[in-house]
C-alpha cells in the first residue's frame, strides 16, 4: 500500500463514491465512543444524511447477503471499502451493537425467519440493539448470571436485572443471556431476543466518569417473550455468546489504530527546535514510540485480514488484538492530554475549545477500553490458554 498508484476496479469506485457522498464535516469525528450512541449521532444532520446514503448504497453491511439488506461484497472488497473509508476519515454509521455483534451471530445461528425479521433493519441503521449479558456483581464471571427465564407454554417469562447494557435507553431490541436451567452453570444459559417495548422492561442510565451515560441498568419484571425469539436451542446459549463475544472483541480492536496523526498537534503545541524536531525531547520520544506502535498495530490488522481472506484462521489473534488495540488507544489518549497541558483538563464551558474538552472526556473514557468487551486480564487468560496452549491455572470453579 504505497498509495502512489492510481486506484482501479472496486477501489476506484469506492473512492469516487465516498468522496462524492461522505460529509466532510464528519471526517475523523466517529467513533466518539464515550458518546457513541444513536441519540447523539442522530442529532447531527450530516450524520443522518450519511446514514441514509450508506443505507441506499447498501454499504452499511457490505458483506451481508443482498436478501438481508447487505451489498453481498466479497471479503476483499469489504476490506478495500474499509481502507478507502479510513483514508479520508470516514466511518460506517451502521457499525453499532446490532451490526458488529448480533448480525454475524444471527447469520450463523439464526433461523431464516429471524434473519429476515432483524437483519435488514440493522443494515439500514433503523433498528438499534443492545446487549443484555452482564449482571450486577458478576463482573468478568459472565456465566454466573441469574436472570431467570421460564417456559410458560406459549411464551417465555423473564425476570431479573442486567447492567452495563450499552445504549439500552435508546435501543429498540435487546439480545440477552438468560438462565433456563439453575442446575448447570454454562449449560443452563439461553440466548433470547427481547423487544424493548415489552411491558416490564425498564432502563436507567449509569453516569460514567467521562460524564456520558450510554451504559444502563436494565430491569426485567415479568417480561413475556414470544417462543420464536430464542436463538439456537434451549440451554445452548453460552456457545452462541462466546462466538458473539469474539465478534465483539474483534470489532473493539478495529479502529483502535485510527484517528488523525498526533504530529500536527504536537508541532503546534510543543513547538519545534532549530533542527525542525519537536522541542520537548521526552514527549517527542514517547510520540515516536506511539507512532511506531500504531503503525505496527495497523500493519498487523492488515496482515491478519489478508490471511483470513486467504484462508488462514485469525481467531487465535482476537484476544491479543483486543489488548493491543486498548493499549494503543489509551496511549494515544494519554499523549493527547500531555500535548494539551493545562488546556486538556477542561470539563465544560468557556476557556476550552471543543477538541480540548473532547480530549479530556476521551481520555477518561479510554480507561474503559481495557475493561469492557472482556477485560484486559480476561483476554490475557484466554490468550494464554487458547493461543499459547499454556496449562490451566488451578482455579476453583
Amino acid at each position, binding site marked *: 500500500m504505497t498509495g502512489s498508484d492510481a486506484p482501479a476496479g472496486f477501489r476506484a469506485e469506492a473512492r469516487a463514491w465516498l468522496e462524492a457522498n461522505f460529509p466532510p464535516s464528519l471526517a475523523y469525528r466517529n467513533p466518539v465512543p464515550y458518546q457513541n450512541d444513536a441519540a447523539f449521532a442522530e442529532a447531527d444532520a450530516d450524520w443522518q444524511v450519511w446514514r441514509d446514503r450508506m443505507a441506499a448504497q447498501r454499504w452499511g453491511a457490505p458483506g451481508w447477503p443482498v436478501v438481508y439488506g447487505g451489498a453481498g461484497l466479497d471479503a476483499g472488497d469489504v476490506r478495500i471499502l474499509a481502507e478507502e473509508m479510513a483514508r479520508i476519515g470516514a466511518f460506517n454509521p451502521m457499525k453499532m451493537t446490532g451490526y458488529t455483534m448480533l448480525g454475524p451471530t444471527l447469520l450463523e445461528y439464526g433461523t431464516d425467519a429471524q434473519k429476515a425479521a432483524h437483519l435488514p433493519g440493522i443494515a439500514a441503521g433503523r433498528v438499534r440493539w443492545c446487549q443484555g449479558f452482564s449482571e450486577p456483581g458478576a463482573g468478568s464471571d459472565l456465566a454466573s448470571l441469574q436472570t431467570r427465564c421460564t417456559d410458560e407454554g406459549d411464551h417465555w417469562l423473564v425476570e431479573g436485572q442486567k447492567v452495563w447494557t450499552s445504549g439500552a435507553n435508546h435501543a429498540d431490541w435487546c439480545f440477552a443471556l438468560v438462565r433456563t436451567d439453575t442446575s448447570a452453570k454454562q449449560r443452563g444459559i439461553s440466548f433470547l431476543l427481547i423487544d424493548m417495548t415489552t411491558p416490564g422492561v425498564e432502563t436507567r442510565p449509569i453516569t460514567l466518569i467521562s460524564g456520558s451515560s450510554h451504559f444502563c441498568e436494565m430491569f426485567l419484571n415479568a417480561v413475556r417473550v414470544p417462543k420464536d425469539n430464542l436463538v439456537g436451542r434451549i440451554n445452548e446459549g453460552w456457545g452462541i455468546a462466546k462466538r458473539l463475544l469474539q465478534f465483539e472483541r474483534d470489532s473493539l480492536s478495529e479502529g483502535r489504530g485510527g484517528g488523525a496523526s498526533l504530529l500536527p498537534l504536537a508541532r503546534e503545541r510543543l513547538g519545534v527546535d532549530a533542527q525542525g524536531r519537536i522541542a520537548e525531547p521526552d514527549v517527542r520520544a514517547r510520540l515516536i514510540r506511539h507512532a511506531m506502535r500504531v503503525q505496527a498495530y495497523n500493519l498487523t490488522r492488515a496482515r491478519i485480514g489478508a490471511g483470513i481472506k486467504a484462508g488462514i484462521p485469525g481467531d487465535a489473534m482476537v484476544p491479543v488484538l483486543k489488548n493491543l488495540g486498548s493499549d494503543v488507544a489509551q496511549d494515544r489518549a494519554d499523549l493527547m492530554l*500531555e500535548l494539551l497541558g493545562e488546556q486538556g483538563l477542561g*470539563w465544560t*464551558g468557556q476557556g476550552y475549545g471543543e477538541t480540548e474538552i473532547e480530549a479530556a472526556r476521551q*481520555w477518561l473514557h479510554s480507561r474503559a477500553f481495557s*475493561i*469492557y468487551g472482556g477485560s484486559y486480564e480476561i483476554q490475557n487468560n484466554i490468550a494464554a490458554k487458547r493461543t499459547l496452549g499454556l496449562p490451566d491455572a488451578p482455579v*476453583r470453579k
Partner: protein
Amino acid sequence: MAVLTEEQALLRDMAAEWVADRAPVTALRRMLHEAPGTGYDPALFADMAAMGWAGILVPEEHGGSDFGFVGVGLILEQLGRTLVASPLLSSGLVGVSALSLGAGAVQQAAWLPRIATGEAVVVLALEEEGRHDPSRIALAATREGEGWRLVGVKAPVPDGMAADAFVVAARVAGDGRDGIGLFLIPSDAPGLSREPLARIDGRGAARLRLDRVTVGDDAMLGGAETGGALLDHILDRGRAGLAAEMLGSATQAFETTIDYLGTRTQFGQLIGSFQALQHRAVGMYAELVLTRSAVEAALAALDADSADAPMLVSLAKALAGETLHRVAREMVQMHGGIGMTEEHDAGLYLKRAAVADATWGSSAFHRERYGRLAGY
C-alpha cells in the same frame, strides 16, 4: 515513613484524624454538588485555618508557626488522601512563599497575617492556556511612568475565584527566564476581571484577564532581573507540596484497591489471590515507596535550603505524577466496570491525577528538567 520529630508526628496524626472525621471523599462530593463560587468548602478551610495550618509557613512575627516544608508536606499528604480541595497549597504554601521570598516588609505585614488566619487568599497566576513552561511567559508588563502596565490572560489560576490577590508572572524584557517579573495585584485592581473555569477535578480555578492593569514599582516582588529565579524558587516549593499531596492521593487509591482485592470474588476466588494482579500490586507498591523517598527528600532539602533542592523537587514531582497516574489507572482497572462509574471514587482519583500532574510541570517536564540540571 520518614523519621519524624514528636511535633511532626503529632501534626500528622492530627491531620489524619481531621481528614477522616471532617473531610472524607464525601465532603468533596458535597462540595462538587453545592458548587460554591470558591471551588472549595469555605467552612472546611476556616476549620484548617483555625488549627493554624493556613499559617504553617508564615514567619512567627506575622502570626504563623513557621513549621517548615516537611511539616506542611505531612498535612498535604493527609489532605491528598481524600482529595480535599482547599487553598492551603495555592495560598498557604505558594502565596506565602512568594511574599516571604520576594515582598518588602510593608507587603508582608499587609498580607501574611491575614493569610495565616485564613482571611486572605493569595495565589500565583502563572499559566497561559497551554503547557507549563515558566521560561516562556508572554503576558506583557510594560513601563508606564513610575509603574507598570499589564495586559494579557492567565489561565488556569488555581483557586483564582477565591483569591484576594494574585502574584502575576509577566514578561518585562527579552525572552527566556531572565526577563520575568512578578507583580502582586489585588483582585479588585481596575482592569482585572476573572471567570471560573470548570476543570475535570472540580476544584476552583479561574481565567484571569488583565486589561491594562497598572501598578506601582512597589508591586514588583524581587527585581526585574531576578524574577525568573524567584519564580523558580516559589514554584519548587509549590511542586514539592503538590507532590506530597499527590503521594497521599496515590497511597489512598492504592490502599482502597488492595482492600477491594481482598474482598471481591470472581470465578469463586478472591481476586487478590490472582498472581497477575498480585505482581502488579507489588509493582505499584514499589513505586509508592520510591515516590515517598523522593517527596520526603525534596521537602527536607527545602527546609535545609540545600543546593540540590531543585533536582530533588523535579524528582519528586515526576515520580509523584507517574505513580499517581499509574495507581489511579489500576484503581479503575482492578475495580472493573464499577470503577468507571461516576458514583465510585476511582474516577475522582483519576481526574485529580491528570490535573495534579499537569500543574506546575508534568512528569515529562520534570524528567527533562532533572536531566538538564544533572548535565544530561
